[in-house]
């Protein structure tokens, strides 16, 4: 009764190709935006920001980035952690090198630098596919972590080998550094997430997205209809790198504050983001959000249940958490290989006809 598209007709092709062609979806989207921008910033505290919202938003950007590459263009990447590190270190170098320029511009530039680096590492994809490409990007991951450890110029020759974000503000509001308010952290990430998601959606619904999906579904057929495979794959790497770089920059500057490359941007980050898009749904922007929410919320939820609810010791809870989330991932892959986005799609299809399914 609450999900209806009857009487909801598109009368122009641009109405039909909008992001939410169904009125109900569109209003729900506006409501979510209104709550995210208008309500949550007033209620948020440090715990919710640091444990839930900020990591969720940042991982959502990274997941959108990887989803464009893997979900839309079909090029598997295990280098997401390393690519996030590129974003983080470029942001650090820019912040310390040009302190008078706004952090927002630094973050966007970091995205641009990462896009260039990722495109470079995407070059092997012109020759190799599937597992072999995954191994090539894995090499990128290890190379980048090694590079940021080895060359001390990247961390300004600091003795600890760490990078730490200096205090920067946007419109007089502090957004990085230890004195940042929870709502400021949340809001700057939210702005970036919103813009990234809109850009990603625009790119994927138009001719560029169709080129990527054509390459993903059948590269020979894509070539025969006039898609230049090299250009299509490299633009996917580039756009993906841009988003992943922004995610890396925010992860370091806003969320962590101080980072060490092996610890913050190791191989486990690559897998984490990959799990997000697999669980969320490959080839879906909504799936990127759903997957990021799932992977961020699940440990928090389990910890609250085990430690807070049942009063078990922390170490036991931590280990159980690995077991539970691991088995949930396996269950998910078996039961719904297309992820949460597919469940959502099915639910919508059912709801269209509910309560009269015939």
């Amino acid at each position, binding site marked *: 009764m609450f999900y209806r598209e009857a009487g909801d007709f598109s009368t122009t092709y*641009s109405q039909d190709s909008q992001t939410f062609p169904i009125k109900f979806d569109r209003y729900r989207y506006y409501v979510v935006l209104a709550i995210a921008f208008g309500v949550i910033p007033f209620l948020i505290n440090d715990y919710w920001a640091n444990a839930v919202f900020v990591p969720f938003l940042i991982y959502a950007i990274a997941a959108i980035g990887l989803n464009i590459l893997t979900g839309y263009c079909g090029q598997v990447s295990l280098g997401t952690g390393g690519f996030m590190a590129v974003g983080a270190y470029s942001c650090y170098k820019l912040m310390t090198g040009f302190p008078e320029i706004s952090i927002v511009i630094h973050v966007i530039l970091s995205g641009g630098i990462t896009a260039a680096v990722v495109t470079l590492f995407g070059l092997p994809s012109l020759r190799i596919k599937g597992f072999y490409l995954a191994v090539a990007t894995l090499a990128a991951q290890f190379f980048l972590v090694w590079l940021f450890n080895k060359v001390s110029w990247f961390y300004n020759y600091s003795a600890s080998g760490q990078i730490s974000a200096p205090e920067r503000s946007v419109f007089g509001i502090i957004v990085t550094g230890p004195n940042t308010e929870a709502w400021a952290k949340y809001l700057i990430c939210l702005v970036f997430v919103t813009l990234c998601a809109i850009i990603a959606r625009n790119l994927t619904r*138009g001719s560029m997205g169709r080129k990527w999906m054509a390459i993903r579904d059948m590269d020979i057929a894509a*070539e025969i209809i006039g898609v230049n*495979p090299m250009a299509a794959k490299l633009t996917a790497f580039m756009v993906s790198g841009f988003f992943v770089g922004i995610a890396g920059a925010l992860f370091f500057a806003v969320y962590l504050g101080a980072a060490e490359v092996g610890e913050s941007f190791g191989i486990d980050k690559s897998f984490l983001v990959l799990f997000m898009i697999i669980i969320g749904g490959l080839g879906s922007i909504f799936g990127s959000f759903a997957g990021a929410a799932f992977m961020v919320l699940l440990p928090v939820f389990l910890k609250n249940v085990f430690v807070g609810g049942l009063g078990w010791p922390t170490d036991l809870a931590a280990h159980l958490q690995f077991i539970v989330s691991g088995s949930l991932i396996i269950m998910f892959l078996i039961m719904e290989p297309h992820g949460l986005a597919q469940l959502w799609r099915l639910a919508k299809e059912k709801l269209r006809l509910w309560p009269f399914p015939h």
Partner: protein
Amino acid sequence: MNAMTGNYTTADGRQIGDTLMEMKNITLRFGGVVAIKDISFDIHEGEIRAIIGPNGAGKSSMLNVISGFYHPQEGEVWFRGAKRPTMKPYQVAQQGIARTFQNIALFNGMSVLDNVMTGRLTHMKTGMFAQALWKGKAEKEEVENREVVEKIIDFLEIQAIRKTPVGRLPYGLKKRVELARALAAEPKLLLLDEPMAGMNVEEKEDMSRFILDVNDEFGTTIALIEHDMGVVMDLSDRVVVMDYGRKIGDGTPDEVRNNQDVIDAYLGVSHD
């Protein structure tokens, strides 16, 4: 009437134009195997040209040469009055040659509409930044191309399955969607690799009608490979017959039907 040179009028009164594509002395080898041996033929504007031959005759290889998958060791391909340099398949597509495949090659993860829209990709030039903004140039381009695509969807009578994922469609409809995708490119030359393979009589009739209508309404030049002799003889204006990589016949269906070499190739001949 001389069908081999210049313009001519078909039996049903259609005026056939100048040479659109000419294959000159094409030889294609895979290692020691000679797939195509010294074949020449031409395709005129507005014509339906069939390539037939027994299995393994080199018909599909010929189509792959035209669409740029294979590069012949010898010979020249002339298209629209100019010699074509060695090209990648996507460059051939951008020149205005579209094709369908023997085994359906649709994009299974996309809807019918998106599949047909991919046929318009050679016509969509908006840059990445305009697309990221969507409003304005990108949206305008999308709508313009959508209008073209909708005409083709109407033409092939697949309106009802517009939003259906291609993977859910039955075989005959998939073939039709693939034809729609090729047509969406508004090609100068349309290559059809066994458009009726695996279809029942009714589906074959439908497909034949669509092929004739496409030729008639859009004036598209069509080159097709087909095994069903009845269909080939009814549809095509001129037929090339291949056997073991050689050309053994070329002419109107009637001429080919009475060609002794062709009869030998299809019915067999005693070698003693």
